[in-house]
Structure formats: C-alpha cells, structure tokens
C-alpha cells in the first residue's frame, strides 16, 4: 500500500504537521478550530484514500464516518461553544511565542533524534514519516501544557488522537478500524464532556482560563 504513494503520504503528513504548528501560533479560537479541521481533514482523507487504493470497504466507511464526526460535527460543535463563551476566550500561552517556537523546535529535533530511531523498525518503508508523526504527538501534548484555556487543552487532546491515528495509518496498522472506532467513540464522549465541563467551568470560575482553577491546594 505504501510503496507507490510515499510522496502523497508525505504530503498528508506535512499538511497535518502544519496544522499543529499553526495551533501553537494562532491567537483566536476560531483559527484554532480551523487548524483542527485541517488536521482532521487530512486524517479522514488519508483513511479514504487508503480505503480506495486497497479496495477496503470498511476503511472507506470509517473514513467517511471520521470525516462526518471530526471534520463536520465536532468543529460545528466547537464553533457553537466558542460563540456561546466568546467574550472570555483568550487562548494565551504560558510561554511567549519565541520561546514556544524554541520548545517546538526542540521537540521536533528529539523526534528525529537517535532516541527514537529504533522505532523505524515498525515501518522501514515510511521511516521518513514516522518522526514527523511522533513530532505531531509531542507538539499536541505541548499545546495542552502551554495553553491557558480549557478549550485549547481539549483541542490538544483531540489533536493527539489525530496524530496517533495518522501514525497508525502510515505505519500500516492492519486494523485501523477498531482503533478509529475507539477514537470516534472517544471524540463523541469528549463532545459531551466539553458541553458539560466548559459550561461548568465558565459558570463557576467566570473564565475558561485554567490558571483560575486554583481552589484546590494542599490543605
């Protein structure tokens, strides 16, 4: 599946990587959600492409479902949430932008370093793609750590999931269906969680800035 389409898969990988990079630099939640849409679109498109190339109907269905949930339903839901709480949405970072970029660079270098080189074993044909996928995972984790907004932390979680699905697909996991169904289940539940918790946090703390969540101290 991979041998004749490496360049195409590399394109998908880079597109998703750019989406995650932009999540770190955008100033508003509107663009944060759009970056997530781009990333999800890449994942869904890749699943559909592989499904068509390999004539696997189940993969086509999963790709379609992924598109419906991750590209359409979830972002629409997040836009609605954003509109409802727009007045206090300020996804500022703990680190300044230059420092953020330095950390991102460091994480990318770590992904390409010899530390993770043994992982190339899992996919020798696509060894160039694996470090990029790993970098996407680390960048998504850093998004959750660096951003002060509860909303951003949530997008970070979903971004990690997308990165993992991308990694699984590109290294040729033969059962992405079970995995993707699990992820879709996870996203569906996260949408419920987001609805409940974002409302609760906003109502109780007057802000979605997680630095306000400091009522719990070592008593």
């Amino acid at each position, binding site marked *: 599946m991979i041998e004749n389409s490496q360049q195409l898969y590399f394109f998908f990988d880079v597109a998703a990587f750019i989406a995650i990079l932009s999540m770190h630099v955008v100033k508003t939640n509107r663009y944060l959600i759009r970056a997530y849409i781009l990333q999800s679109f890449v994942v869904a498109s890749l699943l559909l492409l592989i499904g068509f190339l390999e004539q696997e109907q189940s993969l086509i269905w999963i790709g379609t479902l992924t598109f419906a949930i991750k590209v359409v339903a979830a972002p629409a839901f997040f836009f609605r949430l954003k509109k409802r709480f727009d007045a206090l949405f300020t996804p500022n970072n703990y680190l300044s932008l230059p420092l953020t970029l330095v950390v991102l660079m460091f994480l990318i270098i770590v992904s390409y370093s010899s530390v993770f080189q043994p*992982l190339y*074993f899992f996919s020798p044909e696509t060894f160039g793609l694996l470090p990029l996928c790993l970098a996407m995972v680390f960048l998504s984790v850093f998004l959750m750590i660096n951003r002060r907004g509860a909303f951003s932390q949530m997008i970070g*979680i979903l971004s990690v999931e997308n990165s*993992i699905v991308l990694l699984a697909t590109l290294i040729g996991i033969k059962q992405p269906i079970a995995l993707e169904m*699990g992820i879709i289940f996870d996203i569906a539940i996260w949408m419920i969680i987001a609805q409940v918790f974002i409302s609760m946090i906003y109502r*109780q703390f007057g802000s979605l800035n997680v630095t306000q*969540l400091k009522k719990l101290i070592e*008593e």
Partner: protein
Amino acid sequence: MSLTFLISIPLLTACFIALLQPKHLKIIERGVIVSSFLQLGFILFIIPSVLSRGSITGSALFSIDALGAFLALVIALIGFFTSLYSIGYFRAEVAKEIVGPTRVRQFFLLLQLFLCAMLLAVSTINPVVMWIAIEATTLSTAFLISFYNKQTSTEAAWKYLIINSLGLLLGLLGTILFVAARGENSGALTWAVLQNSVGGISPAALKIAFVFIFVGYSTKVGLVPFHTWKPDTYSKAPTPIVALLSGVLLNVAFFALLRFKSVVDAGLHSAEFTSSFLIFFGLVSLVFSALLIFIQKNYKRLLAYSSIEHAGILALGFGFGGFALYAALLHMLFNSLAKALLFFSAGNIFLKYSSTKMRNVTGMVRVLPLSAPIFFVGSLAALGFPPFGLFFTEFMTFSAGINDHQTAVIIGMLSVLVIFFGFFKHLSALFFGEAPEGIAKGESNLFTQWPVLVLLALFLVLSWHIPASLDELIRFAAHNLSTNF
C-alpha cells in the same frame, strides 16, 4: 455468551435506570442491589470453570483467564459493597439536602457504566478494546468526580480528565507500536498473538513502546510522578466512587501494565527491563508518600497518599517477580478491601462532620461509636499492621526482593515505617479530644453501617484464611504471570 452476560448486567442496569424517573429512587436502589449481586454471583460461578480449563472464551474478543477472573472478582466484590453503601450514603445526603434524587439517579447510572467498563477491560483479550474500556472508565468517572457541582470538584474532575486522557493517549501510542509488530497474517489481535510476534522486533523498539505504555497506564495507577490528579480527585469525589478508584480501578490499570509486561518480557527474553521500571517507580512512589504523609490536613487526601503508597508496593511486588507475584496479587485483594473499608468509614465521618479537614474532626470515638473504630482498624490494616492481611503480603513482597534488590527493599521498608508513624500521628488527632459543638452522636442509616461491618468481617476472615479455590486462582494467575517466556 457467558462473558457477554457478565458485561451486559451493569449495562442493562444502566439502561434500566435511564428509563426510570428520579422519583423511582427506591426501585433504582433495588435494581442496583440485584445487579451487583448478580455480577458477584456470576463471577463466583465461573471461577471453577476458569480453574479447571485455564480460561473461559466468550468470543474472538473476550476470554477470561485466572488473572482476569481474579480481578473481575475484586471488581464485583467491591462493586457489590459500594452499591450497598452508596444507597445509605446518598439517603443521608438527600436527607441533608446536599443532593437531590435526580443527582442520585445519575450517580447510580454512571456507577453501572463505570463497573461495566472495568469488567470489559479485564475480560477482553484485545489490547485496543482494553484501551477503549479503560478510557471509558476515565470518561464515566469524570462526571462522578464533579458530582457535587462545586468549584473544587469541577477543578478536580477537569484535572483528572486532562491528565488521565493524556496518559491513556500515550498508552495508546505504545499499543499502536505493539500492534504494528503483529504482521500481516496473524489473525485477530490478541495478547497471545502479540506475544508470538514480538520476537522479531528490535529490543530497543520494544523498550520504547513499553515506555509509552508504562507512562500511559501508570498515570491511571497513580504512580509518582504521574499521580498529581489523585489527591485532588480523592478529596472531592463522592466517597463510594473513591473507594472504587482506589481499590479497584488501580488494579485494572495494573492489569493492563502486566499484560504488556508479559509481551515485552517475551520479546526481550528477560524481565529485567520491565521489572526495573516497576521497581524504580514503585520505590519513588513509596518515598514520595512517606515525605508528604506528615503534612496532610485533609483525611481524604491522606488516604490518597496511602493509595499511592500501596500502588508503590504493588509495583515493587510485580517488579521483584517470583514469589512476590503471588504476594502482589494477594496485596491487590487486601488493599481493595482495606481501601473500601477506610473510605466507607471516612464517608460516615464526612456525613457526620460535614468536613474533610482534620482540624474539624475531633472526638470521633465519642461521636461515631461504630465508624470510628472501623476507621481505626481499617487504618491499621492499610498501614500493614499485623494481624491483617496487608502485613503478610508486604512482608512476603519484601522477603521476595531482599536477595536481588537489597537497597530497594531497605528503602521501601523505611518508607513504610515513616508512613506508619505519619498516618498514626493524624489518627490520634482525629480520634481523641472533644467533639465540636453541634455534632450529634450516632451513625447515619443502616445502609452506611452494615456493609462496612460485613466488609470488615470479610477482611478479617480472609486475612487469616484464604479459601482454597481463591488461593488456587491467585496462584494460577501468579504462575501465568511468571512463565510467559
């Protein structure tokens, strides 16, 4: 079929509760009792089959071996007592107008989903399905932790959600790497297939994959430094849920770790790498708990650090291997019973004093003539005091490790000793002195008392006598863990 029935019981109960109105709370309570009784009865029914056949296979996805059956038994047993206790606990809270019938109904519904997810996790042989089930426990308990709808409980729940979800996603990444090693024609994804296919993976790649798994599931276990959610969650969640988190979910997370440990050990032809991880982080957890136990001011947070301590002891036991495997599995059982006992009696303390701060809880022995002594006994048991079971299992664990891991054993034992003194210091402050004004003497309703009494009796009996079939089950499970390569 039979395993599907096991998982269906709590799921059907949840559907049953969802169909009822909050005004039918008494019917819901009866349904919960019947459901938990059926779960426990079913597990006890299948154990002889597991012992005679080695495992029971339900389908391509479900099969339960000795380890799975043992953990399912612990889940069902603690789930049974938790269900009973919850009835009394929330009756008292409804009477005090802390919560209403609607919230109680939601609690029982989410409790069934939580139990269903845990039973699913230990009865599946597919690592991805296991991950989904454990993720489902995170999602169901998040709503339970924020149950009281206050700032502090919302904060605790959000922290729990983010940290555990992130941890489990890293665990998923590790799972993906293992699955990738499976190859093209290996059939359905099961633990046995994984074990047979890891032989060809480079050892370094296997180690990296295990590191991701370890980080992921250790977050769920609450080993240091992945424990940061625990004290906040334990202090703010409803007591019955904390009993399940501390006594049961911890075991389920360990189950996942042990399954992957077996696979990695088979691939590396040695348990040294995985054991060193478990021993190191187990020790760090013990030392950390010892350092922080003295400064606690909240008795539920105190119990959270006790939970971290026991997670550390379990990690040591599974890391030492050999005879310590049997000790660690037995420790799982006793820790579950002790934690349930402690948290239920802590729940009664909270119902009486309406505070989790230790400075507000004094003269307990006069105010709570039943719960106070039980809390005291439960504390002694959790601290590994003889003649309780945890003393024997800790002793066996450290004895098993003394030859090959002397330094670890010495540090571990010193930490346990420090924890003992620290905990005891707090206990004496809680028990004696004058009760605050306005606190009436006496317990809450019967449902908050007799499950605790029965649990205590069970704990005492098992400390002195393990039934032959249970002992055989644990030995069988320990044997399976030790001879996987």
